[in-house]
């Protein structure tokens, strides 16, 4: 066990964990941040997506010891009041069915729009195809990314 200092959602955390513990489990088990989901553990489904210095990153394979001073943002820290343009678009379009994958979808979409404020359909598909939605809400995810692109 080692002590790790982490910058998450604008706050400083100190937590003890084994060095190889994936960030996902530090968030969920140590820090009580349950918004980031486990789906596959091998970076195939995207349910665990967080931002690392603003970039979409799969937290299920990222050892806590590799984070260093990087800034982590989870779904809980994407906005103060759940009003990030992507969250608003997801609500407007009413994307979720079971909802389990949506935090990961939202984090992937938010990083895309930061990098590419007006993505083409092909760019949306290329990026969002890394995230699985078992309920099949893909049409609305795509629509919501476009709606979010129109918001400030």
């Amino acid at each position, binding site marked *: 066990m080692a002590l790790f200092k982490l910058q998450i959602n604008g706050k400083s955390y100190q937590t003890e964990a*084994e060095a190889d513990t994936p960030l996902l*489990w530090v968030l969920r088990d140590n820090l009580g941040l349950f918004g980031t989901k*486990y789906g596959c553990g091998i970076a195939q489904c995207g349910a665990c997506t967080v931002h690392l210095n603003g970039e979409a990153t799969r937290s299920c394979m990222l050892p806590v010891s590799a984070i260093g001073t990087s800034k982590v943002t989870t779904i809980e820290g994407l906005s103060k009041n759940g009003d990030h343009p992507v969250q608003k678009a*997801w609500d407007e379009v009413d994307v979720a069915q079971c909802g*389990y994958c949506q*935090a990961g979808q939202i984090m992937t979409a938010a990083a895309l729009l930061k990098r590419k404020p007006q993505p083409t359909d092909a760019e949306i598909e290329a990026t969002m195809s890394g995230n699985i939605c*078992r309920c099949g*809400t893909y049409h609305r995810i795509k629509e919501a990314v476009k709606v979010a692109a129109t918001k400030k």
Partner: protein
Amino acid sequence: MSSQLNHNRRNFLKIAAATGGGLLLGFNWTDSEAAVSGAPLKGVAAPAIDFNSYLSINPQGVITILSPNPEVGQGIKTAFPIIVAEELDADWKNVVVEQAPLDTQKFERQVAGGSGSIPHSWKRLRVAGATARHMLLEAAAKRWNVSASDCTTSKGFVLHAASKRKLSYGELATEASKMPVPTDVKLKEIKDFKLIGQTIKNVDNPGILTGKPLFGLDFHREGMLIGMLQRPAFGYKLKSVDSAAAKAMPGIVNVVTINNSVAVVGKSTWQVKKAKDALKIEWEKDGNLESTSDHNRIFKEMLDSPTTTVRRKDGDVETAFKNAAKVIKAEYQCPFLPHSPLEPMNFFAHVKADSAELVGPSQTPEAARNQTAKLLGLPPEKVSVQLTRMGGGFGRRLNTDYAIEAVQVSKAVNAPVKVMWTREDDMTGGIYRPAVRYRFEAALDAQNNLIGYKLRGASINAGNATREDNFPSGAVENLLIDSIDHKSPITTGPWRAPITNFLAFAEQAFLDEVAQAADKDPVQFRLELLDKAKQKPTGKVTYDVDRMKGVIQLAVEKSGWGKKKGVSQGFSVYFSHRSYVAQIGEVVVEKGKPVLKKVYSAADCGIVINQSGAQQQVRGCVVDGIGHAMYGNMTFKDGIPDQKNFNDYKLIRMNEIPEIDVHFVQNEIDPTGLGEPSLPPAGAAVANAIFKATGKRLYNQPFVETEVFKGVS
């Protein structure tokens, strides 16, 4: 169409004054709300909710509705309250919805399965809302000293037009709770619905979109331990376990044997996962060690077996085939499939000396409670089950194995434990869609009439893999449907739209081939058969011919069937889970490969409760149906699954979906379910369109492994 209902008194338990004043009504399944105009009242603190009831109205006008059925993504937690709120004339923005725990005293059928929740509860929910509305109306009339028939309700208010007075439901709640409960309450006319049929958002959106801990895997209790199990493959049992290394690892509290599995219990998920991987387990043979290659052989044997179970026999099939001008034969095969809900199996259990507490995602919480009670020797009322939102289920969570495991582990280590399955555990741990092979034979006479029809279903652990009364049964004079099943150690169970999820593909693909042999348009061919089922039926007809024709016509009209240039269309129609769905797929060939561009779907599920939820269910079913038909494949070698995670088991992704155009037949028929019926026809709509585009028939799933897709990953 207004209906007078003599509602069952059992459905109305009692009325009690709410804590802090307010109306509490107990019905099966219900609740509603009401209140004042202007801003939503959801921020107002409601009085303590009495969980002996379902609907409460607080003096501020906030209406709390308990939703008793498990929410698995089918949208029931939004749909049920809409129905109550409609009849109550509530203002939707002042409704608060809460998930009820398992409570068999107050609720019936707390199940998510069979697309059955809405048809089961439709009338009950309406009566519940209408009854409360009636009592509020009576209370206002009494206060004003006017006739109740001169009063009306709107958006959470009772109005008296003559004197221009109005009172909010909140103001009336306490008095209303003392009014007699009407025994036959008048329901709204369908044309007067204001909420039902609108586009209403998922009530859990705020929590889902901000990462609130809504799901079973998110459940946390101080002092709780994490458990993971290593389970045997199919046909094996535990021989010995060396857990010394695992036990010595940091954070590990105990390693225990549960039946034929080994459970590692510890303080954190990652520690437990690593210790589980460090177990040294020896398994021994405990049954047949079956491989997919064995099943392929067994299928052929079953299809040629003289011993089967006859499911339906009409007329004289032998003579019909002897006299046939043309005989068409085809076989179709579909593999095992895991359910793959994105939230893997998990459950929290705390077994104490004289009680047990369960929390988690279950489609059948009552079964989990009863099995727990039996296992622990407790009366069922000593076992509580709290329902969490489920990260998908698709039938997997109709089984209670994972909840019972949590109970066993908690008991063994005498502590509160959340058992979780890794994705690998989930994919390899059993309960699959059964694998099936069908043989169809059709006899046409010289005029190309279908005079004989045979279907044999050969399955691995499916029981009866046919649905003998489904179309075209009833439309063919000479018909024989039988089935044969092989018992395998590979465990199976219901998978979204059980049996029909692959039977519909086979039937509708075969009918397409028969239509071709009869030189008829595939739609026209089916319409002629349907006319026959109506005008000159053979045996039992269990589908409504007019409703099936209705969805066919709607799909044909919306898709421009037969008139479109530049795309190849394929048709499919199916009746399952009480709803009718016709679908038309559109395929083009790009770089020598068929590409599915669009699916038109036309459904008749009666009255649509929520446009948003209904559209989602149809699209989700089509994506699910196409995705698994295209890619899903679970194979075995000596009882051990070959696929273990999403790197070797493919689920459909955004860049592989077609456009999906969703339509509903508009009628005033009582609503039926939508969680499943749009899935079964999807596979054949695609396969038939691919045939049109390429001239190649698809007989086996997954499609991607067949010749026409070779080279496509």
